[in-house]
């Protein structure tokens, strides 16, 4: 079979099992678009901005575990995609992004719509390729999918000059089944000696803590994690990226940790004597002050990426390997071994933790005459039986979604943690909804963030995506306002949003349903009414209390036991932050 480069590209995607291609056409990719036109194996989703193509592919990847695929043109198409590529990179999301490039012969001549896509994306991809020879195209695509989806996943860019896809040049097609790269062989199996050391150390713990992250979701290891946690009976916390990898409704789960983590999780981190970190990377929003991180603890760390280990916090027992594989080996040793966890000590530890729990750090004012954002998220959880896919943007609403939705399953909580990209939520929800057309997909957003990719309402109409947009409209760039309240003496510099659109009319003009809710008394009924419209996109514009803050909060650079608590909790720690920074 002889195919042109454009046909090869499309055919490779099919052979790779790609269902959706998120893209936007332009001069350098027209040969590819022509090849797409002549087939119907791969469904192309025409977004309204290339940033959205990358976020949609990313959302698809986070929900399904399969790499998301993007096609954009050269120049502005590629630069528009960069934010989405960096977003995926920071959260280790598998993605293959194909960028068109000007013809090989004019590369370097400042040709029309030329940018050095390989150079621009180099610092925010796992790897990138420039295809120089059509005979190498299929192999390059295979390599891209292999690199993107194995080891620590990440985005891979393939830059394809226009002449490579020339319909007039046909060559034999062959897509390799397997690829071996001498320079890339990720470690999957952990070192057995280290695993044994880890098990021994775990069993000596009197005040143990299990800290897990996005690696458990990425490595599909929730099952193995549950076995470990149940067998040991130890408390478990997860990062923002790990939510859902262990059921939030389980007794042993003590909430998220870090800057906006629970009182009990952060206090337990501070006081523990053995910590096991599983697929988590000791991010600065998690560790707080490095010098006071888990001061009395020995640390075990399982991660597939050696560079995540001892990067900021030096650990005692490093294990390089895939979480699921390592946990299986660990569980086997634990279950067949004779030694048991320290029962007495553990009971005492749980008593301490339950004391912290009793302080109810997540309390908020339930009698307010304003709509409380936390109440909205709780209600949304109730109405959807806690079983929806929830994407979010970035800000206070993101933290409330994380804190109050209570995820019991992995791959359901989809947000930009590492880069913190406003504008992520709606396009990500499109990717999820395409993958799971019959499931409820919610985008919890703010009136600031939603405007960063609002144009995608049009894409949602075109493909009939009934996403439920829950906008917690506080008329503020709330997270910025909160920092200004706490650390800049209430100087609210450019964090107030004026001249907001009428979101109901806006949704309607895009052909969707808009519902404005401003009374706590009608909140439930209106949410229920909107969620009942199964096949429509509904935009809930919810007017929330403008002054609500996210609690608990550890100020940047402070230790885990220096939290600021909500005035509605029973906590002993300072209730309002000291005003820093003059």
């Amino acid at each position, binding site marked *: 079979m002889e195919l042109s480069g454009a046909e090869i590209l499309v055919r490779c995607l099919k052979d790779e099992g790609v269902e959706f291609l998120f893209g936007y056409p332009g001069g350098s990719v027209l040969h590819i678009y022509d090849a797409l036109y002549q087939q119907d194996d791969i469904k192309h989703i025409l977004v309204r901005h290339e940033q959205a193509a990358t976020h949609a592919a990313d959302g698809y990847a986070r929900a399904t575990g399969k790499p998301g695929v993007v096609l954009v043109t050269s120049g502005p198409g590629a630069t528009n995609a960069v934010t989405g590529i960096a977003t995926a990179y920071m959260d280790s999301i598998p993605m293959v992004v194909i960028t068109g490039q000007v013809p090989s012969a004019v590369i370097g001549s400042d040709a029309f719509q030329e940018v050095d896509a390989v150079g621009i994306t180099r610092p925010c991809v796992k*790897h990138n390729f420039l295809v120089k020879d059509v005979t190498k195209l299929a192999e390059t695509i295979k390599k891209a999918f292999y690199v993107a989806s194995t080891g620590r996943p990440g985005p891979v860019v393939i830059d394809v000059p226009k002449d490579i896809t020339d319909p007039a040049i046909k060559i034999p097609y062959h897509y390799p089944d397997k690829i071996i*790269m*001498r*320079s890339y062989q990720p470690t999957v199996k952990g070192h057995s000696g280290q695993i044994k050391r880890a098990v021994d150390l775990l069993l000596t713990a009197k005040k143990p803590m299990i800290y897990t992250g996005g690696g458990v979701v990425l490595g599909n290891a929730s099952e193995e994690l549950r076995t470990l946690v149940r067998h040991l009976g130890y408390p478990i916390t997860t990062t923002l990226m790990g939510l859902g990898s262990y059921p939030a409704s389980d007794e042993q789960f003590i909430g998220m940790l870090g800057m906006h983590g629970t009182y009990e999780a952060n206090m337990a981190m501070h006081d523990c004597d053995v910590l096991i970190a599983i697929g988590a990377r000791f991010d600065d929003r998690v560790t707080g002050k490095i010098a006071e991180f888990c001061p009395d603890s020995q640390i075990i760390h399982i991660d597939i*990426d*050696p*560079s995540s*280990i*001892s990067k900021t916090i030096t650990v005692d027992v490093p294990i390089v390997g895939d979480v699921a594989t390592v946990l299986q080996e660990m569980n086997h040793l634990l279950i067949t071994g004779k030694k048991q966890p320290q029962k007495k000590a553990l009971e005492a530890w749980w008593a301490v933790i339950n004391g912290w729990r009793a302080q109810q750090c997540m309390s908020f004012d339930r009698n307010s005459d304003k709509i409380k954002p936390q109440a909205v998220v709780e209600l949304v959880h109730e109405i959807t039986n806690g079983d929806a896919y929830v994407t979010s943007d970035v800000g206070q609403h993101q933290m409330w979604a994380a804190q109050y939705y209570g995820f019991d399953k992995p791959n359901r909580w989809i947000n930009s943690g590492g880069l913190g990209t406003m504008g992520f939520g709606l396009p990500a929800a499109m990717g999820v909804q395409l993958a799971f057309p019959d499931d409820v997909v919610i985008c919890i957003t703010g009136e600031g963030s939603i405007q960063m990719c609002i144009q995608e309402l049009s894409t949602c109409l075109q493909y009939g995506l009934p996403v439920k947009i829950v906008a917690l409209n506080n008329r503020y760039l709330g997270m910025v306002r909160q920092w200004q309240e706490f650390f800049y003496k209430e100087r609210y510099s450019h964090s107030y949003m004026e001249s907001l659109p009428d979101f109901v009319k806006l949704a309607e003009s895009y052909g969707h349903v808009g519902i404005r809710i401003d009374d706590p008394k009608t909140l439930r009924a209106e949410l229920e009414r909107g969620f009942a419209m199964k096949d429509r996109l509904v935009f809930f514009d919810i007017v929330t209390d403008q002054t609500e803050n996210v609690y608990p909060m550890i100020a940047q650079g402070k230790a885990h036991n220096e939290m600021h608590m909500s005035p509605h909790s029973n906590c002993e720690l300072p209730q309002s932050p000291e005003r820093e920074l003059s």
Partner: protein
Amino acid sequence: MRRHIISILIENEAGALSRVAGLFSARAYNIESLTVAPTEDPTLSRMTIVTVGTERIIEQIIKQLNKLIDVVKLLDLSEGPHIEREMMLIKVKVATMSQRDDVKRLSDIFRGNIIDVTPSTYTIELTGSATKIDSFIEALAEHKILETVRSGVSGIARGDKILHV
């Protein structure tokens, strides 16, 4: 803070050098010198990087370099006995007889070769460790150095240890 010489075998692909250089600048690692050239195997290049950092930083540098998809193998030469060589071409002003004599004498002491001569300049080729080269430049302090070109460090492990695919 310690000086490390890191040797890398890297796929001989376009852009491989920029990946390494970009890594050092993006992560604000020190780089004292970097050399790269093809090996006897045309698909591989060998790179030698001289860097300075605390043990923690060097550990991260090595991990981050290994993480680059094009890096096939890496060896921290400073971990064991090794040989380090750098080549310098240096052009010195020699306007008088006594200057000529003195520069020639110094060059001989350091086992340099005078490889180009004009009525007013000597160009000397000198090979050795980076410290030897530094010392030679210091020794020439009383003379006017017109130009120096240093190759950057190349290194190899002593004995049976090899960096090979």
